[in-house]
């Protein structure tokens, strides 16, 4: 059992708190993404789990065993670094077999295992090439193969795909996920790309300024963001700052929006709050008298696969996205109405 338990972990550099009291439980065999903007502490947290940095506070256990004081080279975790850190003076096979060589495995067994792993990452023929001869994608896979060489308890990856171009990245996201499912190893990936987190992870941990903002499945986080930061970081969100006035009423820009029982409320009656609704969950109606809000069309973007309509309400532009087939017949400067689909509004703390 290799679930990872992070208990109130803190990391300080002088006065600067990089990781602030993080408590998270990562189940055995799950694929977790640490997601957040740069500087949020996600890489620091990963390095703390790896043992490359010492904890300032809190504890870390893996499979029930306290790992807080175990040095990095004894943890038996696999890791892929952002720069990949392949050893330039060794061949591909030697790189992959390096952890085995340290552990005293003999040469022929090392070779067998290296070839096995190369098969696993779909690079069967490059065992004896030099690192500098490989393409970006190939190096990536070799780094992954090397990280998995000892069948690690935990597999850690620090922004593994950020250096690749978009096409290759999407490809490798899928492969990485499939690989992980096949091997069943507890995997923790750091990324700043929310699309990547959404595609690969079982669980997403959103971080900001050293603190955990929300933990949940990608869909949970998307549908039910815990606060405005998460709402905005994951996908695009319309954020309306106003006040909850009445049991199912949100007042914004002097207009009253009637909410339904299915909408999610994080604040009490009378409190200020932020209404969050995704562009695909709000519809433009040609008649301004209809819908929960009204405003003026400020911009229309026809993007081919979908249409974006920006409606000016108060001092913000609300974005509504729809398929070309369902495009409402409105044009620039028209006064229009806006309707939020049932249950898709979330009122977050201000």
């Amino acid at each position, binding site marked *: 059992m290799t679930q990872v338990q992070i208990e109130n972990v803190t990391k300080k550099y002088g006065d600067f708190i990089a990781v602030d009291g993080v408590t998270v439980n990562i189940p055995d065999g799950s694929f977790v993404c640490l997601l957040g903007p740069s500087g949020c502490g996600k890489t620091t947290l990963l390095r703390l789990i*790896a043992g*490359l940095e010492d904890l300032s506070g809190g504890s870390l256990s893996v499979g029930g065993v306290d790992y807080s004081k175990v*040095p*990095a*080279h*004894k*943890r*038996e*975790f*696999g*890791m892929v*670094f*952002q*720069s*990949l*850190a*392949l*050893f*330039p*003076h060794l061949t591909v096979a030697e790189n992959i077999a*390096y*952890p085995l060589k*340290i*552990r005293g495995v003999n040469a022929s067994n090392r070779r067998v295992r290296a070839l096995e792993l190369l098969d696993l990452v779909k690079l069967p023929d490059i065992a004896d090439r030099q690192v500098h001869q490989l393409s970006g994608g190939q190096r990536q896979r070799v780094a992954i193969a*090397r*990280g998995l*060489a*000892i069948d690690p308890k935990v597999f850690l990856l620090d922004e593994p795909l950020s250096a690749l171009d978009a096409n290759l990245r999407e490809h490798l996201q899928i492969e990485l996920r499939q690989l992980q499912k096949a091997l069943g190893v507890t995997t923790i990936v750091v990324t700043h790309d929310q699309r990547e987190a959404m595609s690969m992870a079982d669980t997403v941990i959103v971080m900001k300024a050293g603190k955990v903002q929300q933990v949940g499945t990608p869909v949970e986080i998307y549908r039910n963001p815990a606060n405005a930061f998460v709402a905005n970081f994951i996908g695009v969100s319309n954020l309306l700052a106003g006040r909850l006035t009445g049991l199912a009423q949100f007042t914004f820009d002097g207009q009253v929006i009637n909410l339904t029982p299915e909408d999610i409320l994080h604040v009490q009656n009378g409190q200020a709050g932020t209404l969050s609704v995704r562009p695909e969950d709000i519809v433009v109606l040609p008649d301004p008298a209809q819908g929960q809000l009204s405003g003026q069309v400020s911009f229309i973007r026809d993007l081919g696969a979908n249409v974006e309509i920006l409606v000016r309400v108060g001092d913000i532009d609300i974005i509504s996205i729809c398929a070309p087939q369902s495009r409402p017949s409105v044009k620039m400067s028209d006064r229009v109405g806006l309707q939020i689909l049932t249950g898709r509004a979330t009122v977050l703390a201000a």
Partner: protein
Amino acid sequence: MTTLTARLKDHRGPAYPLVMLVVFFVVPFVIMLSVSFFSRDEGAFFQPAFELSNYARFISPFFGKVLLTSLTFSAAAAIISVSVAVPFTYFVTRMRARWQSVMLVFLLSVLSLSEVIIGFAWSTLLSKTAGIGNLLVAIGLMEISQSFTPSLGALLLGLTYLGFPYAVLVLYPALSRLDPEIPEAARMLGASPIRSFGNVVMPMMRNTITGALILVFVFTLGAYLLPQVLGRPQHWTLSVHITDQAIFQSNLPFAAAMAIFLMLVSLALVGISTLLGRART
């Protein structure tokens, strides 16, 4: 404008440097080469001639011994100073920028000291009345203070001190460009910190380390004062004899011959080690 004048104008930039370097660097060496074949003149420094007698004096056990001594000392100093410099420089490159600057300022200041100052400083440090002798007596390791110089150990210490800053400066660029994630990856793969240094960092730095060894070796070959101040007459290296012959024995042709010889030996050794280095990769 014709192409010729255009081309000349294009190259007029380096004209002044070229002239200066040729006149004041290349020419002196050509002259020195010719002087090495001249004969000695008591009154006027040297007499134009062509004799090989200066070079012939090398083929004697005395100078054979001097050459061997010089090479051995320089090799030892190179090995010691580079061995210490590699981990030292590595640690410095892992420091924060501000501390790196502090270290570098300190190292450059030590580097700028001429051999005279270093000789004076070390002979004082190892002397009877003003050196660590007093310190050792104070903490009870010795009965009475004594002088540790002149001696073989003192000379080696001085030569190592002379070459160390240069070793650090040669190693610094390469070590600071080393991706810090590489030793970290080695650790994650199971290598203890010491093993990751020896197993991964050192092999990657092979060429730079060789360069540092060569530099310190050649540089300490040119030490003209330390063997006199910190060593006994049997420790005198070739460079000491060059200065001795040039200044005190007023035998410039012989000094020139030795200098040319030393230059050739240095170049040959540099060449051989560079070739060996290339052959291995």
